C-alpha cells in the first residue's frame, strides 16, 4: 500500500488481540487480502506473543476423564464408516408418494371408478412425479448450501484460513466476492452482484501464482447475482485468484474477460 502504513500496524495489533470490529475490521481484512507481507508476519509474531502470555500461568492437570473420553471418541470414529450416512434423504419423496396413494385410495373408496377418472389419475401420477422430482432437487440444493455454510464456518475457525477479497472488473465493476481460503483444505467463494452468465456460458475461477493460471471450477450465479462455489485445494501455489466468463463446460485456460480478481 501507499505512504502511511502506521495505521495498519495499529489495526494489526488490535486484530491479533481479537478485538477489531466494524469498518476497521473490513478495512484491515481487505488490506491483508491484498497480500501485505509485513502485516502477515506481524500477526504471526503477535499471535505467538499472546500465546506465551496465555500459557504463562502454572500448568494444571485437567480432569482425567477428559483424556479417556477423547480416546474413546477416537476409537469410536475408527469403527464407524468414514462419512455420515445420508440421514433423512428420502422422507420428502416418501411423503409425496404417500399423499398420492392416499388421494387415489380416497377416490376408489368412493366407488366412482369410471373411464374419465383414468385420464385424471394418469395426470395426477405425472404431477406427483414432477413434484417429487422438484422436491428432491430443492432438497439436494438446500443440503448442499447448508453443507457449504457449515464448511465455511469450520474453515473460519482455523487460524490458517484467510479471507480474500475479489473485486469486480471489466464488464462487471459492481461484482464483489470473498474467498474463504485454506491452503490445505481449499475453501468457498461467495459471490454477490455478478450478473447471471449468458446462455451457454458460465463463470470459471482460476488460481494464480504458478507459471500459468489453474482452473478451480465452474459455477453459475442465481437470478439475484449470488453464488457459493466450493473450491478444492490448489495443486500448486495459489497467491491470487480471478474469475472469467467461459463456455458452459469450462476451459483449461482462461479465454474470456476477467469479471472478478483479487489484488
Amino acid at each position, binding site marked *: 500500500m501507499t505512504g502511511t502504513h502506521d495505521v495498519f500496524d495499529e489495526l494489526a495489533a*488490535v486484530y491479533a488481540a481479537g478485538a477489531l470490529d466494524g469498518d476497521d475490521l473490513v478495512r484491515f481484512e481487505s488490506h491483508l487480502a491484498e497480500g501485505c507481507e509485513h502485516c502477515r508476519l506481524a500477526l504471526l509474531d503477535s499471535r505467538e506473543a499472546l500465546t506465551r502470555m496465555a500459557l504463562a500461568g502454572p*500448568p494444571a492437570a485437567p480432569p482425567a476423564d477428559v483424556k479417556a473420553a477423547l480416546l474413546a471418541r477416537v476409537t469410536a470414529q475408527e469403527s464407524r464408516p468414514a462419512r455420515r450416512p445420508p440421514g433423512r434423504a428420502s422422507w420428502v419423496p416418501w411423503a409425496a408418494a404417500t399423499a398420492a396413494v392416499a388421494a387415489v385410495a380416497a377416490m376408489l373408496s368412493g366407488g366412482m371408478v369410471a373411464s374419465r377418472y383414468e385420464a385424471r389419475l394418469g395426470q395426477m401420477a405425472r404431477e406427483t412425479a414432477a413434484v417429487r422430482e422438484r422436491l428432491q432437487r430443492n432438497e439436494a440444493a438446500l443440503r448442499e448450501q447448508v453443507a457449504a455454510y457449515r464448511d465455511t464456518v469450520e474453515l473460519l475457525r482455523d*487460524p490458517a484460513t484467510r479471507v480474500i477479497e475479489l473485486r469486480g472488473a471489466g464488464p462487471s465493476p459492481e461484482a464483489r466476492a470473498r474467498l474463504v481460503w485454506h491452503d490445505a483444505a481449499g475453501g468457498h467463494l461467495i459471490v454477490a452482484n455478478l450478473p447471471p452468465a449468458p446462455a451457454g456460458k458460465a463463470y470459471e475461477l482460476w488460481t494464480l501464482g504458478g507459471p500459468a493460471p489453474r482452473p478451480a471450477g465452474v459455477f453459475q450465479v442465481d437470478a439475484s447475482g449470488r453464488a457459493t462455489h466450493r473450491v478444492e485445494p490448489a495443486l500448486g501455489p495459489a497467491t491470487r485468484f480471478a474469475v472469467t466468463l467461459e463456455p458452459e463446460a469450462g476451459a483449461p485456460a482462461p479465454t474470456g474477460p476477467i469479471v472478478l480478481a483479487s489484488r
Partner: protein
Amino acid sequence: MTTTGEDLIRRMAAGDREAFGRFYDRYAPLVYPLVVRIVRDRTDAADVLQEVFWEAWQGAPAYDPGRGSPEAWMATRARTRAIDRVRAVRRRSATFVPAMDEGPAPPEAGGDAAEQAEDRGVIRAALARLSPAQREAIELAYYAGLTQTEIARRLEQPLGTIKTRIRLGLERLRDAVRRAP
C-alpha cells in the same frame, strides 16, 4: 532426543493414536488453565478442553508450521472455543459479567520443569512491565473477548486510546518474547 510438537501433529495427521495421547499429555496442562481462566467453571472448562483437542485430532492434517507454533495453534483454538462457551452461557443467564483478573500469580516451584518455569517467568516479567492500562486493554480483548468498541465503552475511553494501548502493550510483549526465545 525429544519429539517436537510438530512431529506429534504430523503423526496425528496420519492417524497415530499414541501420538495423540502424548500430544494431549504435553499440551492439556498448558491449555487447561487458559480455558479455566476464560470460562471460570471447571465443568465447562473440561467440556471445552475436550472439544479443543478433538478438533486438533480432526484438524491435524491442516496444520501448517509456517503459520504458527503448535502452542499458538492450540492456544488460539482454546481461546476461541472458551469465549464461544462464555457467550453461550451469557445468552442463557442475562446476569453474567465477565470477571476481571485474579491477583498476582503464585510463586513458581523449581524442579524438573525449571526451564519452562524460567520461560514463564520471563513472560510474567514482561507482563509486569506493561502499564496497568495496557494490560487491562489486552486482557479484556484476549480473555473476555470484548471488541475495541466494547472495551472503549466499558472503560469510558476514546476508541483511539484503546487501540493505542493494545498496540503499545503488544509491542512490549513481542519485544520480551523476542529477547527470550
